[in-house]
């Protein structure tokens, strides 16, 4: 197994290996998304409290889950990049930051759109919203330090340190924000974001969650491959590959 990871850290091997996965990941993403969207928007029953507007959770909740999951992937890749200095993990850090920031923004925007009809306001200084907003700032920090340093390898290592510092801080920020909210504001009579759900709604939600995960893998592979090609453009195997196509 170690030899597999070892091989995977070589850009050429990774390129060939991920190339085999891409059509599969793409196919699964499209199938699951189509199934999940149809099930969620058409088959799933209307919520008796929130009406049709609750259906945005089929995008919102998976996006929010992804925003945290991708940060974890980024920090782990950052750790690998700092310890073993493999090129692939360095690329994964910077690509994760971009994808993760988009998912976080998506979760925030869909949450705000859902909040308007449900809470009567786009924004509440609710603990979950606030920590999601701070998560977005953390992602933007990683992206901006990465783009500020010219040498891509140094940039990746600086971004990795920041990602790891961030992952230690995320639970602290989350709990401090939760505590802050409970201390400073009376409990708002909000509809809880994830009440115990009926299976007819839960199953499409889980399908969408898996679809988003596979989509992330698909997107990550494509982006990492592009970056490999651009960084390794002076090597022989890339030249051969381009001449062959």
């Amino acid at each position: 197994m170690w030899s597999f990871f070892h091989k995977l850290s070589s850009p050429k091997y990774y390129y060939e290996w991920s190339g085999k996965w891409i059509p599969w990941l793409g196919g699964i993403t499209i199938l699951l998304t189509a199934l999940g969207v149809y099930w969620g928007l058409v088959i799933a029953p209307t919520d008796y409290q929130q009406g049709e507007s609750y259906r945005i959770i089929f995008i919102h909740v998976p996006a929010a889950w992804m925003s945290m999951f991708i940060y974890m992937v980024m920090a782990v890749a950052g750790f690998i990049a700092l310890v073993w200095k493999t090129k692939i993990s360095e690329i994964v850090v910077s690509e994760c930051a971009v994808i993760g920031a988009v998912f976080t923004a998506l979760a925030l925007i869909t949450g705000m759109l859902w909040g308007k009809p449900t809470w009567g306001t786009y924004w509440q200084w609710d603990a979950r919203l606030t920590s999601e907003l701070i998560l977005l700032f953390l992602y933007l920090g990683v992206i901006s330090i990465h783009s500020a340093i010219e040498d891509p390898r140094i940039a990746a290592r600086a971004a990795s340190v920041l990602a790891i510092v961030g992952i230690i801080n995320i639970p602290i920020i989350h709990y401090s924000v939760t505590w802050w909210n409970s201390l400073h504001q009376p409990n708002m009579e909000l509809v809880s974001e994830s009440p115990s759900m009926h299976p007819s709604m839960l199953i499409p939600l889980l399908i969408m969650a898996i679809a988003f995960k596979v989509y992330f893998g698909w997107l990550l592979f494509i982006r990492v491959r592009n970056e490999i090609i651009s960084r390794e453009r002076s090597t022989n195997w890339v030249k051969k590959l381009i001449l062959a196509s």
Partner: protein
Amino acid sequence: MFKALLTIIQRDLLVAFRRRAELMNPILFYAIVVTLFPLGVSPDKNFLSQLAPGVVWVAALLAALISMESIFRQDFDDGSIEQLYLSQHPPMVLIFGKVVAHWLITGLPMLIVIPVMALLLFIPNQAIPTLFITILLGTPILSLIGAIGVALTAGLRGGGVLLWLLVLPLYIPVLIFASGAVSASIDGLATSGHLAMLGVGLILALILAPLAISASLKISMS
């Protein structure tokens, strides 16, 4: 090793006292930022005292950050930091010495200026001791976390704005617990919970931040 640490602290303090005018800058900055709030919001006494814990600490965050930039800048440019990494002592310890010295120069004066400004914002007297404790516990965390950001951006031209973007989100827990403690003591509530959390934060930062700072400086030098 301990002697090397003390030497670094002594040397940095000496350099700072040779340029006394700069010592005042964070304090002045702090006073001006706090002055802006009554002018911008309202001079009403009740309203201000409600706002005060937040204002006092938001301004402290900004003042800490604005003074942070000087911590490694000059030593980084003239190569002294590189020399620290070449010495026989672990660089983490020496860098920690620099952070301590920097806190003594910029963080400790906050003990004087913050209570004065607190009076201008009508914080009741019973909250002043709590305010002191939050400054003592909170500002070292600000210095330690801020130093990570400075270390990451040390090699960059115009890393200033970037530093703010990197570090301010990480300061949020300090802001919440410190201003929370002051608010609680104004309302006559128990503050031990907040202060304990600040203490935990300080211990965590003391243990983990030097690792991140020395790793970041090394990256910036490569």
